[in-house]
Protein backbone atom coordinates (compact mmCIF):
# COMPACT_ATOMS: atom_id res chain seq x y z
CA UNK A 1 0.00 0.00 0.00
CA UNK A 2 1.29 3.47 -0.93
CA UNK A 3 1.42 5.74 2.13
CA UNK A 4 1.55 9.51 1.89
CA UNK A 5 0.40 12.71 3.55
CA UNK A 6 -1.56 14.21 0.64
CA UNK A 7 -2.91 12.00 -2.11
CA UNK A 8 -3.45 14.09 -5.23
CA UNK A 9 -5.85 12.77 -7.83
CA UNK A 10 -4.82 14.22 -11.17
CA UNK A 11 -1.28 15.08 -12.27
CA UNK A 12 -2.12 18.19 -14.29
CA UNK A 13 -0.54 21.57 -13.54
CA UNK A 14 -2.64 22.14 -10.41
CA UNK A 15 -1.87 18.69 -9.00
CA UNK A 16 1.84 19.09 -9.74
CA UNK A 17 2.08 22.51 -8.11
CA UNK A 18 0.34 21.13 -5.02
CA UNK A 19 3.44 18.99 -4.47
CA UNK A 20 5.54 22.15 -4.23
CA UNK A 21 3.30 23.98 -1.77
CA UNK A 22 2.91 20.81 0.32
CA UNK A 23 6.67 20.26 0.23
CA UNK A 24 7.30 23.69 1.73
CA UNK A 25 5.19 22.46 4.67
CA UNK A 26 7.14 19.18 4.75
CA UNK A 27 4.11 17.20 3.61
CA UNK A 28 4.74 14.34 1.21
CA UNK A 29 2.58 13.83 -1.87
CA UNK A 30 1.64 11.02 -4.20
CA UNK A 31 -0.26 11.53 -7.46
CA UNK A 32 -2.64 9.25 -9.35
CA UNK A 33 -3.47 9.88 -13.00
CA UNK A 34 -5.36 7.86 -15.59
CA UNK A 35 -2.98 9.02 -18.30
CA UNK A 36 0.41 7.35 -18.68
CA UNK A 37 2.30 10.65 -18.31
CA UNK A 38 2.02 13.67 -15.98
CA UNK A 39 0.71 17.01 -17.22
CA UNK A 40 -2.99 16.31 -17.73
CA UNK A 41 -4.60 18.19 -20.60
CA UNK A 42 -1.42 20.20 -21.14
CA UNK A 43 0.46 17.04 -22.14
CA UNK A 44 -2.40 15.06 -23.63
CA UNK A 45 -4.31 17.65 -25.65
CA UNK A 46 -2.08 20.60 -26.48
CA UNK A 47 1.60 20.22 -25.49
CA UNK A 48 2.74 22.38 -28.41
CA UNK A 49 0.23 25.19 -27.87
CA UNK A 50 1.23 28.42 -26.16
CA UNK A 51 -0.34 29.74 -22.94
CA UNK A 52 -0.17 33.50 -22.36
CA UNK A 53 -1.66 33.94 -18.89
CA UNK A 54 0.78 32.20 -16.59
CA UNK A 55 2.04 35.05 -14.36
CA UNK A 56 5.65 35.81 -15.16
CA UNK A 57 5.62 33.90 -18.45
CA UNK A 58 4.67 36.15 -21.39
CA UNK A 59 4.40 32.92 -23.40
CA UNK A 60 4.99 29.30 -22.46
CA UNK A 61 4.19 26.08 -24.32
CA UNK A 62 1.86 23.82 -22.34
CA UNK A 63 4.40 20.99 -22.54
CA UNK A 64 7.19 23.26 -21.29
CA UNK A 65 5.04 24.42 -18.38
CA UNK A 66 4.64 20.79 -17.33
CA UNK A 67 8.40 20.18 -17.67
CA UNK A 68 9.06 23.25 -15.52
CA UNK A 69 6.60 22.13 -12.86
CA UNK A 70 8.19 18.66 -12.77
CA UNK A 71 11.58 20.33 -12.28
CA UNK A 72 10.19 22.63 -9.58
CA UNK A 73 8.79 19.73 -7.52
CA UNK A 74 11.61 17.23 -8.15
CA UNK A 75 13.30 17.71 -4.76
CA UNK A 76 10.02 16.93 -2.99
CA UNK A 77 10.16 13.43 -4.50
CA UNK A 78 6.48 12.94 -5.36
CA UNK A 79 5.29 9.40 -6.01
CA UNK A 80 3.23 8.62 -9.11
CA UNK A 81 0.63 5.99 -9.94
CA UNK A 82 0.17 6.60 -13.66
CA UNK A 83 -2.13 4.89 -16.14
CA UNK A 84 -4.60 4.07 -13.37
CA UNK A 85 -7.89 5.69 -12.50
CA UNK A 86 -8.92 6.42 -8.92
CA UNK A 87 -11.98 4.26 -8.43
CA UNK A 88 -13.09 4.17 -4.77
CA UNK A 89 -12.47 6.10 -1.58
CA UNK A 90 -12.86 4.65 1.91
CA UNK A 91 -12.73 6.80 4.99
CA UNK A 92 -10.89 5.14 7.89
CA UNK A 93 -11.77 5.43 11.55
CA UNK A 94 -8.81 7.73 12.21
CA UNK A 95 -10.08 10.16 9.55
CA UNK A 96 -7.57 9.08 6.90
CA UNK A 97 -8.54 7.70 3.49
CA UNK A 98 -7.78 4.70 1.32
CA UNK A 99 -8.13 5.32 -2.40
CA UNK A 100 -8.07 2.31 -4.70
CA UNK A 101 -7.48 2.47 -8.45
CA UNK A 102 -9.12 0.45 -11.21
CA UNK A 103 -6.05 -1.79 -11.14
CA UNK A 104 -6.36 -2.40 -7.41
CA UNK A 105 -3.46 -0.19 -6.28
CA UNK A 106 -4.22 1.11 -2.79
CA UNK A 107 -3.15 4.48 -1.44
CA UNK A 108 -3.41 5.49 2.21
CA UNK A 109 -3.37 9.24 2.86
CA UNK A 110 -4.27 11.68 5.60
CA UNK A 111 -5.74 14.11 3.10
CA UNK A 112 -7.09 13.70 -0.44
CA UNK A 113 -6.83 16.53 -2.96
CA UNK A 114 -8.86 16.02 -6.11
CA UNK A 115 -7.18 17.96 -8.90
CA UNK A 116 -9.02 16.01 -11.54
CA UNK A 117 -9.43 18.71 -14.19
CA UNK A 118 -12.22 17.74 -16.56
CA UNK A 119 -12.06 14.16 -15.31
CA UNK A 120 -10.07 11.14 -16.34
CA UNK A 121 -9.35 10.64 -20.00
CA UNK A 122 -11.32 7.70 -21.32
CA UNK A 123 -11.50 6.27 -24.85
CA UNK A 124 -14.31 7.77 -26.93
CA UNK A 125 -16.83 5.10 -27.74
CA UNK A 126 -18.61 5.22 -31.09
CA UNK A 127 -22.42 5.28 -30.92
CA UNK A 128 -22.96 1.83 -32.47
CA UNK A 129 -26.05 0.00 -31.17
CA UNK A 130 -25.24 -2.89 -28.79
CA UNK A 131 -21.50 -2.26 -28.91
CA UNK A 132 -21.37 -2.31 -25.10
CA UNK A 133 -22.51 -5.96 -25.16
CA UNK A 134 -19.31 -6.93 -26.94
CA UNK A 135 -16.83 -5.07 -24.74
CA UNK A 136 -14.18 -7.65 -23.76
CA UNK A 137 -15.94 -10.08 -26.09
CA UNK A 138 -14.13 -8.90 -29.18
CA UNK A 139 -14.48 -5.13 -28.82
CA UNK A 140 -11.70 -3.19 -27.07
CA UNK A 141 -11.12 0.58 -27.08
CA UNK A 142 -7.38 0.30 -26.56
CA UNK A 143 -4.69 -2.23 -27.30
CA UNK A 144 -3.38 -3.61 -24.04
CA UNK A 145 -1.64 -6.78 -25.18
CA UNK A 146 -1.01 -7.05 -28.94
CA UNK A 147 -0.48 -10.83 -28.62
CA UNK A 148 -4.24 -11.20 -28.11
CA UNK A 149 -4.56 -10.44 -31.83
CA UNK A 150 -2.03 -12.99 -33.11
CA UNK A 151 -3.44 -14.84 -36.14
CA UNK A 152 -6.84 -13.22 -35.63
CA UNK A 153 -8.98 -11.12 -37.94
CA UNK A 154 -8.95 -7.54 -36.70
CA UNK A 155 -10.84 -4.44 -37.80
CA UNK A 156 -9.69 -1.01 -36.60
CA UNK A 157 -11.76 2.17 -36.93
CA UNK A 158 -10.38 5.71 -36.74
CA UNK A 159 -8.21 8.17 -38.63
CA UNK A 160 -5.68 9.45 -36.14
CA UNK A 161 -2.24 8.34 -35.03
CA UNK A 162 -3.30 5.47 -32.83
CA UNK A 163 -5.51 3.93 -35.55
CA UNK A 164 -2.65 4.20 -38.06
CA UNK A 165 0.06 3.00 -35.68
CA UNK A 166 -1.86 -0.03 -34.48
CA UNK A 167 -2.87 -0.97 -38.03
CA UNK A 168 0.81 -0.93 -38.97
CA UNK A 169 1.85 -2.89 -35.90
CA UNK A 170 -0.89 -5.49 -36.11
CA UNK A 171 -0.32 -6.05 -39.84
CA UNK A 172 2.58 -8.30 -38.76
CA UNK A 173 0.69 -9.95 -35.91
CA UNK A 174 -2.90 -10.50 -36.97
CA UNK A 175 -3.94 -12.75 -39.83
CA UNK A 176 -6.00 -9.94 -41.34
CA UNK A 177 -6.12 -6.19 -40.59
CA UNK A 178 -8.86 -3.94 -41.91
CA UNK A 179 -8.75 -0.20 -41.31
CA UNK A 180 -12.01 1.72 -41.64
CA UNK A 181 -12.12 5.52 -41.65
CA UNK A 182 -14.84 8.01 -42.43
CA UNK A 183 -12.61 10.09 -44.70
CA UNK A 184 -10.04 9.31 -47.36
CA UNK A 185 -7.64 11.63 -45.52
CA UNK A 186 -5.79 10.61 -42.38
CA UNK A 187 -4.39 13.16 -39.96
CA UNK A 188 -1.62 11.11 -38.34
CA UNK A 189 2.12 11.62 -38.67
CA UNK A 190 3.13 11.70 -42.33
CA UNK A 191 5.37 8.60 -42.24
CA UNK A 192 2.58 6.58 -40.58
CA UNK A 193 0.21 7.56 -43.38
CA UNK A 194 2.85 6.58 -45.98
CA UNK A 195 3.53 3.26 -44.23
CA UNK A 196 -0.18 2.38 -44.19
CA UNK A 197 -0.32 3.10 -47.91
CA UNK A 198 2.68 0.76 -48.49
CA UNK A 199 1.07 -1.99 -46.45
CA UNK A 200 -2.19 -1.47 -48.29
CA UNK A 201 -0.38 -1.85 -51.64
CA UNK A 202 1.31 -5.00 -50.32
CA UNK A 203 -2.10 -6.36 -49.41
CA UNK A 204 -1.26 -6.47 -45.69
CA UNK A 205 -3.82 -3.87 -44.66
CA UNK A 206 -7.31 -3.88 -46.07
CA UNK A 207 -8.24 -0.19 -46.22
CA UNK A 208 -11.90 0.79 -46.48
CA UNK A 209 -12.67 4.52 -46.88
CA UNK A 210 -14.79 6.57 -46.68
CA UNK A 211 -16.73 4.20 -44.52
CA UNK A 212 -18.12 3.66 -41.05
CA UNK A 213 -18.92 0.63 -38.96
CA UNK A 214 -22.64 0.77 -38.40
CA UNK A 215 -23.38 -2.54 -36.70
CA UNK A 216 -21.70 -5.23 -34.64
CA UNK A 217 -22.94 -8.81 -34.69
CA UNK A 218 -22.24 -11.70 -32.37
CA UNK A 219 -22.41 -15.48 -32.40
CA UNK A 220 -24.47 -17.70 -30.07
CA UNK A 221 -21.84 -17.39 -27.31
CA UNK A 222 -22.21 -13.61 -27.37
CA UNK A 223 -18.76 -13.14 -28.90
CA UNK A 224 -18.15 -10.71 -31.73
CA UNK A 225 -18.46 -12.42 -35.10
CA UNK A 226 -18.82 -9.70 -37.72
CA UNK A 227 -19.14 -5.99 -38.31
CA UNK A 228 -21.27 -4.22 -40.87
CA UNK A 229 -19.32 -1.59 -42.77
CA UNK A 230 -21.22 1.06 -44.65
CA UNK A 231 -19.20 2.59 -47.47
CA UNK A 232 -19.89 6.04 -48.93
CA UNK A 233 -22.88 6.19 -46.57
CA UNK A 234 -24.85 4.05 -49.06
CA UNK A 235 -26.95 1.08 -47.98
CA UNK A 236 -26.10 -0.54 -51.32
CA UNK A 237 -22.44 -0.49 -50.38
CA UNK A 238 -22.62 -2.36 -47.13
CA UNK A 239 -19.97 -4.95 -46.40
CA UNK A 240 -20.43 -7.65 -43.79
CA UNK A 241 -16.93 -8.41 -42.56
CA UNK A 242 -16.19 -11.44 -40.42
CA UNK A 243 -13.83 -10.46 -37.61
CA UNK A 244 -12.58 -11.74 -34.26
CA UNK A 245 -11.74 -8.30 -32.93
CA UNK A 246 -12.96 -4.74 -33.41
CA UNK A 247 -10.79 -1.90 -32.07
CA UNK A 248 -12.44 1.56 -32.32
CA UNK A 249 -9.69 4.17 -31.83
CA UNK A 250 -11.29 7.60 -31.70
CA UNK A 251 -9.02 9.27 -29.17
CA UNK A 252 -9.72 10.16 -25.57
CA UNK A 253 -12.17 12.48 -23.89
CA UNK A 254 -12.39 13.47 -20.24
CA UNK A 255 -15.14 12.10 -18.02
CA UNK A 256 -15.70 12.88 -14.35
CA UNK A 257 -15.98 9.12 -13.89
CA UNK A 258 -16.08 7.24 -10.58
CA UNK A 259 -15.37 10.42 -8.54
CA UNK A 260 -18.97 11.37 -9.26
CA UNK A 261 -20.02 8.49 -6.97
CA UNK A 262 -17.87 9.40 -3.99
CA UNK A 263 -20.65 11.23 -2.18
CA UNK A 264 -19.31 14.63 -3.14
CA UNK A 265 -21.65 17.49 -3.85
CA UNK A 266 -21.65 17.93 -7.64
CA UNK A 267 -22.90 20.96 -9.55
CA UNK A 268 -22.46 21.64 -13.27
CA UNK A 269 -20.26 18.54 -13.67
CA UNK A 270 -17.86 19.93 -11.06
CA UNK A 271 -17.29 19.42 -7.33
CA UNK A 272 -18.68 22.09 -5.00
CA UNK A 273 -16.11 23.47 -2.57
CA UNK A 274 -15.84 26.08 0.14
CA UNK A 275 -14.13 28.97 -1.61
CA UNK A 276 -14.29 31.23 1.45
CA UNK A 277 -11.58 29.19 3.13
CA UNK A 278 -9.74 26.18 1.78
CA UNK A 279 -11.50 24.51 -1.18
CA UNK A 280 -12.66 21.64 1.01
CA UNK A 281 -15.56 19.53 -0.28
CA UNK A 282 -18.56 18.37 1.73
CA UNK A 283 -16.37 15.48 2.93
CA UNK A 284 -13.91 16.84 5.55
CA UNK A 285 -10.37 16.00 4.54
CA UNK A 286 -11.23 15.79 0.85
CA UNK A 287 -10.39 18.91 -1.14
CA UNK A 288 -11.05 19.73 -4.80
CA UNK A 289 -8.80 22.19 -6.63
CA UNK A 290 -8.36 23.44 -10.18
CA UNK A 291 -10.78 22.88 -13.05
CA UNK A 292 -12.63 20.07 -11.24
CA UNK A 293 -14.17 22.34 -8.60
CA UNK A 294 -16.86 24.97 -8.71
CA UNK A 295 -17.88 27.93 -6.54
CA UNK A 296 -19.45 31.32 -7.23
CA UNK A 297 -17.25 33.15 -9.72
CA UNK A 298 -15.12 30.11 -10.53
CA UNK A 299 -12.74 30.46 -13.47
CA UNK A 300 -11.11 27.40 -14.98
CA UNK A 301 -7.64 28.84 -15.30
CA UNK A 302 -4.29 27.25 -14.46
CA UNK A 303 -3.33 30.31 -12.43
CA UNK A 304 -6.47 29.95 -10.30
CA UNK A 305 -5.63 26.28 -9.75
CA UNK A 306 -2.22 27.29 -8.40
CA UNK A 307 -3.80 29.67 -5.91
CA UNK A 308 -6.35 27.08 -4.80
CA UNK A 309 -3.59 24.48 -4.34
CA UNK A 310 -1.65 26.88 -2.12
CA UNK A 311 -4.54 27.65 0.24
CA UNK A 312 -5.59 24.02 0.28
CA UNK A 313 -2.12 22.92 1.47
CA UNK A 314 -2.25 25.31 4.43
CA UNK A 315 -5.58 23.80 5.46
CA UNK A 316 -4.26 20.26 4.95
CA UNK A 317 -1.31 21.08 7.21
CA UNK A 318 -3.60 22.27 9.99
CA UNK A 319 -5.74 19.17 9.59
CA UNK A 320 -2.74 16.85 9.79
CA UNK A 321 -0.98 18.77 12.59
CA UNK A 322 -3.77 20.53 14.54
CA UNK A 323 -1.44 21.53 17.39
CA UNK A 324 1.61 22.66 15.46
CA UNK A 325 2.39 26.35 15.30
CA UNK A 326 3.16 27.61 11.84
CA UNK A 327 3.40 30.83 9.87
CA UNK A 328 3.88 31.09 6.14
CA UNK A 329 7.45 31.87 5.16
CA UNK A 330 8.63 33.34 1.85
CA UNK A 331 10.83 31.00 -0.19
CA UNK A 332 13.20 33.94 -0.63
CA UNK A 333 13.67 33.98 3.14
CA UNK A 334 13.44 30.31 4.00
CA UNK A 335 14.77 28.76 0.82
CA UNK A 336 13.49 25.42 -0.43
CA UNK A 337 14.68 22.31 1.39
CA UNK A 338 13.93 19.16 -0.58
CA UNK A 339 13.23 15.72 0.85
CA UNK A 340 16.27 14.59 -1.13
CA UNK A 341 18.59 16.67 1.04
CA UNK A 342 19.07 19.49 -1.47
CA UNK A 343 18.61 23.08 -0.40
CA UNK A 344 18.01 26.08 -2.59
CA UNK A 345 18.36 29.48 -0.96
CA UNK A 346 19.03 33.09 -1.74
CA UNK A 347 22.74 33.94 -1.65
CA UNK A 348 23.73 35.71 1.56
CA UNK A 349 24.53 39.38 1.30
CA UNK A 350 28.21 40.10 1.58
CA UNK A 351 29.15 42.52 4.36
CA UNK A 352 32.58 43.91 3.83
CA UNK A 353 34.11 47.24 4.64
CA UNK A 354 35.79 49.28 1.92
CA UNK A 355 39.10 50.57 3.26
Amino acid at each position, binding site marked *: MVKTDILIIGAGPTGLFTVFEAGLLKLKCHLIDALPQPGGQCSEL*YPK*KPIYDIPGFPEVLAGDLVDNLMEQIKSFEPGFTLGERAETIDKQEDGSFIVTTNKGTQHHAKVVAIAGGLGSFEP*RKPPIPNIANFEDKGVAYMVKDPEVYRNKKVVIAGG*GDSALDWSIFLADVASEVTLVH*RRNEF*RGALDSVDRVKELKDLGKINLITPAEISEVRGNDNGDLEAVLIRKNNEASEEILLEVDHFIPL*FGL*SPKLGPIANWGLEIE*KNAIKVDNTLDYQTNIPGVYAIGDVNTYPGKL*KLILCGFHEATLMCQSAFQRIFPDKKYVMKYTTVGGVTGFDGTKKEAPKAVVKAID
Partner: protein
Amino acid sequence: MEEDVKITIIDREGVAHEVDAPTDMNMNLMEIVRSYELAPEGTVGICGGMAMCASCQCYVLSDTPLTEMQDDEEAMLAEAFHVEDNSRLGCQIPITKDLEGLKVQLAPEE
Protein backbone atom coordinates in the same frame (compact mmCIF):
# COMPACT_ATOMS: atom_id res chain seq x y z
CA MET B 1 -27.57 46.28 -28.68
CA GLU B 2 -26.46 47.55 -32.01
CA GLU B 3 -23.49 45.19 -32.16
CA ASP B 4 -25.66 42.12 -31.62
CA VAL B 5 -26.91 39.61 -34.18
CA LYS B 6 -29.93 37.37 -33.72
CA ILE B 7 -29.10 33.66 -33.74
CA THR B 8 -31.42 30.71 -33.23
CA ILE B 9 -29.97 27.78 -31.33
CA ILE B 10 -31.92 24.55 -30.92
CA ASP B 11 -30.73 22.83 -27.75
CA ARG B 12 -30.25 19.11 -27.21
CA GLU B 13 -33.82 18.75 -25.98
CA GLY B 14 -35.12 20.25 -29.21
CA VAL B 15 -36.09 23.64 -27.76
CA ALA B 16 -35.34 26.64 -29.98
CA HIS B 17 -33.78 29.74 -28.38
CA GLU B 18 -33.47 33.03 -30.23
CA VAL B 19 -30.54 34.83 -28.63
CA ASP B 20 -28.62 38.07 -29.07
CA ALA B 21 -24.99 37.38 -29.84
CA PRO B 22 -22.49 40.23 -29.49
CA THR B 23 -20.14 40.78 -32.41
CA ASP B 24 -17.74 42.96 -30.43
CA MET B 25 -16.67 40.55 -27.68
CA ASN B 26 -14.39 38.22 -29.68
CA MET B 27 -16.86 35.40 -29.01
CA ASN B 28 -17.58 32.24 -30.95
CA LEU B 29 -20.76 30.21 -31.27
CA MET B 30 -19.69 27.69 -28.59
CA GLU B 31 -19.21 30.54 -26.14
CA ILE B 32 -22.65 31.94 -26.97
CA VAL B 33 -24.15 28.54 -26.11
CA ARG B 34 -22.25 28.56 -22.80
CA SER B 35 -23.05 32.15 -21.95
CA TYR B 36 -26.78 31.51 -22.37
CA GLU B 37 -26.38 28.13 -20.61
CA LEU B 38 -28.19 26.31 -23.42
CA ALA B 39 -26.37 23.09 -22.50
CA PRO B 40 -25.14 22.04 -19.06
CA GLU B 41 -21.67 23.31 -18.15
CA GLY B 42 -19.13 20.58 -18.83
CA THR B 43 -21.03 19.18 -21.81
CA VAL B 44 -20.11 21.83 -24.35
CA GLY B 45 -16.76 23.45 -25.08
CA ILE B 46 -14.88 20.87 -23.04
CA CYS B 47 -11.49 21.52 -24.67
CA GLY B 48 -11.99 25.26 -24.26
CA GLY B 49 -12.32 26.03 -27.96
CA MET B 50 -9.25 24.45 -29.55
CA ALA B 51 -11.14 22.19 -31.98
CA MET B 52 -9.82 19.28 -29.94
CA CYS B 53 -13.10 17.80 -28.86
CA ALA B 54 -16.43 17.73 -30.63
CA SER B 55 -18.61 18.74 -27.70
CA CYS B 56 -19.67 21.97 -29.47
CA GLN B 57 -20.64 20.22 -32.70
CA CYS B 58 -23.76 21.71 -34.26
CA TYR B 59 -25.77 21.31 -37.43
CA VAL B 60 -26.13 24.45 -39.52
CA LEU B 61 -29.78 24.76 -40.57
CA SER B 62 -29.74 28.12 -42.36
CA ASP B 63 -27.74 29.06 -45.46
CA THR B 64 -25.90 31.81 -43.57
CA PRO B 65 -22.39 32.36 -44.94
CA LEU B 66 -19.86 30.98 -42.46
CA THR B 67 -16.09 31.16 -42.17
CA GLU B 68 -14.42 28.36 -44.07
CA MET B 69 -13.42 25.21 -42.24
CA GLN B 70 -9.76 24.98 -41.27
CA ASP B 71 -7.73 21.76 -41.19
CA ASP B 72 -8.02 21.15 -37.43
CA GLU B 73 -11.81 21.48 -37.49
CA GLU B 74 -11.99 19.20 -40.52
CA ALA B 75 -9.79 16.62 -38.77
CA MET B 76 -11.80 16.74 -35.56
CA LEU B 77 -15.07 16.28 -37.42
CA ALA B 78 -13.55 13.28 -39.21
CA GLU B 79 -13.19 11.63 -35.79
CA ALA B 80 -16.39 12.90 -34.18
CA PHE B 81 -19.64 10.99 -33.89
CA HIS B 82 -23.12 11.94 -35.18
CA VAL B 83 -21.47 13.95 -37.98
CA GLU B 84 -23.64 15.17 -40.85
CA ASP B 85 -22.80 17.14 -43.99
CA ASN B 86 -23.86 20.35 -42.23
CA SER B 87 -21.82 19.70 -39.08
CA ARG B 88 -19.54 22.43 -37.75
CA LEU B 89 -17.71 23.01 -34.50
CA GLY B 90 -19.26 26.01 -32.75
CA CYS B 91 -15.89 27.07 -31.33
CA GLN B 92 -14.59 27.66 -34.85
CA ILE B 93 -17.41 30.04 -35.83
CA PRO B 94 -16.64 33.60 -34.74
CA ILE B 95 -19.67 35.83 -34.15
CA THR B 96 -19.75 38.45 -36.89
CA LYS B 97 -22.39 40.71 -38.49
CA ASP B 98 -22.73 38.08 -41.25
CA LEU B 99 -24.32 35.65 -38.81
CA GLU B 100 -27.61 37.59 -38.51
CA GLY B 101 -30.38 34.99 -38.78
CA LEU B 102 -28.11 31.97 -38.31
CA LYS B 103 -29.96 28.86 -37.17
CA VAL B 104 -28.14 25.89 -35.69
CA GLN B 105 -28.97 22.75 -33.73
CA LEU B 106 -26.65 21.30 -31.11
CA ALA B 107 -25.49 17.77 -31.94
CA PRO B 108 -26.19 15.09 -29.32
CA GLU B 109 -23.74 14.68 -26.47
CA GLU B 110 -21.24 11.90 -27.09
